[in-house]
């Protein structure tokens, strides 16, 4: 290929089914995670590492957060860098099937304490994530250079591979299967998933979508360049220091915490300078995400103190995943899902005379009122989950149910959009 055109895949955007299968699968796992949390019972906040709680957590991290982030990456890579995942249809089909199976079997094994299922589920998830990280990593290398969003995607994919390897090691040890002995594998796994995979990817996506959808000024160049690197560097140092039991090893994570905090503050500040002044569900969802991130960081600091109350770590993890990651994700889904459907309608109806004039617009595919309703449930779930740490007997049940309800409604909202897409196709091509 000519040097000037390397990486240019603007005409190779993924077909609808590639991202959509991931996005449409997530709500079922969100509902399952809420129910699994209720089943884990009010002891959850003090028994974060019990099988029932780890199982519920993995329904959410693998089934919701990672599921959506993988699906969205196929699309975003094409938009922000003109890159494309090689053999994207096959990669999507295989990784989606493996990830869905892996998340379900692993979580079931953890919750029901069936060790063989823990081992099998972990291996399926490992295969899914390694295959995805390799394929998407190859996609990143085809993308235009010099872009901080694309660089952050590459870093996040590296973190995903490390996280998956550490997680599988911890799971196989839990299952009693032969596995390399890595001290603190489970502990390190959490850091690489949360700060590395989720934190760095959300940052990279934010560099692009926050200025784009809200018409804010861009993030400062120093932030785009250094915040993801600070997180990755801190994780690397911590991963070397913690297993060696060096005193104060947890302090190595401080730059990661500060970088994530700076990211949240910058985002909230940029949002106040937005030129688009109308209320917008995505904007509100991202605000909730950033406030949750600050809350999670505030709870994470005491969690690292020696002899800390285990509820600090539980609160930090809950706010990070259900508050920060999930709110950023639903905010993106409100825009990505109807846009992908709209784009597909245009592609398909192009040859049909007069049909393009009748293509429903984004808010007809996914009405803002429905997005707002979903967001209210999402916010209620975050608040209840946070408060349930203090009063688990009273609030864990409603918190789990609110989480399940928020994702049930997200599923209904997305299916409604898919139905409107089908109806528009049916009207145009009887």
């Amino acid at each position, binding site marked *: 290929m*000519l040097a000037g055109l390397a990486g240019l895949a603007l005409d190779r955007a993924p077909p609808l089914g590639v991202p959509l299968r991931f996005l449409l699968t997530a709500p079922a796992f969100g509902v399952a995670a809420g129910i699994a949390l209720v089943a884990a019972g009010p002891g959850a906040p003090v028994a974060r590492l019990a099988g029932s709680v780890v199982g519920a957590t993995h329904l959410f991290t693998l089934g919701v957060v990672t599921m959506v982030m993988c699906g969205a990456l196929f699309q975003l890579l094409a*938009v922000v860098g003109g890159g494309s995942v090689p053999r994207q249809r096959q990669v999507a089909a295989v990784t989606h099937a493996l990830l869905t199976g892996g998340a379900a079997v692993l979580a079931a094994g953890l919750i029901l304490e069936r060790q063989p299922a823990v081992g099998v589920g972990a291996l399926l998830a490992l295969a899914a994530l390694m295959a995805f990280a390799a394929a998407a990593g190859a996609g990143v290398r085809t993308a235009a250079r010099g872009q901080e969003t694309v660089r952050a995607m590459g870093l996040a994919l590296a973190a995903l591979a490390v996280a998956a390897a550490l997680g599988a090691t911890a799971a196989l040890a839990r299952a009693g299967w032969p596995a390399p002995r890595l001290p603190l594998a489970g502990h390190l796994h959490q850091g690489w998933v949360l700060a590395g995979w989720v934190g760095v990817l959300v940052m990279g996506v934010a560099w692009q979508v926050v200025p784009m*959808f809200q018409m804010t000024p861009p993030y400062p160049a120093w932030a785009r360049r250094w915040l993801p690197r600070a997180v990755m560097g801190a994780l690397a140092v911590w991963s070397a220091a913690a297993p060696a039991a060096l005193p104060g090893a947890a302090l190595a994570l401080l730059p990661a915490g500060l970088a994530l905090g700076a990211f949240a503050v910058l985002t909230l500040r940029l949002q106040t300078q937005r*030129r688009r002044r109308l209320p917008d569900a995505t904007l509100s969802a991202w605000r909730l995400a950033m406030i949750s991130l600050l809350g999670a960081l505030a709870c994470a600091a005491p969690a690292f103190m020696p002899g800390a109350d285990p509820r600090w770590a539980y609160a930090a993890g809950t706010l990070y995943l259900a508050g920060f990651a999930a709110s950023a994700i639903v905010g993106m889904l409100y825009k990505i899902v109807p846009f992908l459907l709209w784009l597909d309608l*245009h592609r398909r109806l192009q040859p049909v005379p007069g049909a393009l004039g009748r293509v429903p*617009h984004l*808010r007809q595919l996914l009405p803002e009122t429905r997005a707002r309703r979903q967001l209210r449930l999402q916010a209620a779930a975050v608040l209840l989950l946070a408060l349930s740490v203090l009063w688990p007997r009273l609030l864990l049940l409603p918190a789990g149910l609110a989480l399940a309800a928020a994702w049930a409604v997200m599923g209904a909202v997305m299916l409604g959009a898919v139905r409107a897409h089908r109806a528009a196709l049916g009207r145009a091509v009887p």
Partner: protein
Amino acid sequence: MSTITDLLSVDHRRCDEHFAEAETAVGRGDWARAAGELAAFRAALERHLSAEESVLFPALEAREPMAAGPTGVMREEHRHMRALLDELARAVAARDAESYLGASETLLVLMQQHNAKEEHVLYPMSDRVLGAEAVAPLERALADAQAHGDAATG
């Protein structure tokens, strides 16, 4: 402006300003202002699309025949944008805020993802392939269209 990327990226922001002003006016129910802002947005966007279609894309396609795929996608998205601009104009004429905001949300997402592809991929590639000498004709095309637009509206 020293590069195609700088020139056209700044022009994207100029279009965004008018887009946001028009949408805000519709949100407030200020239809007179909305009509004016929409006209300004439409003129700015049309000027930008025309400059790309008449100057940048042909130059790029002449130098690199393989660019026809990506520029084809860009031209198609320009067509969708123009159709949405028509919808916005109809909604303002009918004072139909719901239709306006639906179409403007669609245009926003389409336009922003389109701009991202151009600013990160197509423009830097144009700078590499066409070099600095392509900047002046583009500047002229933007200025000519503006003068023409001012004459037409003035």
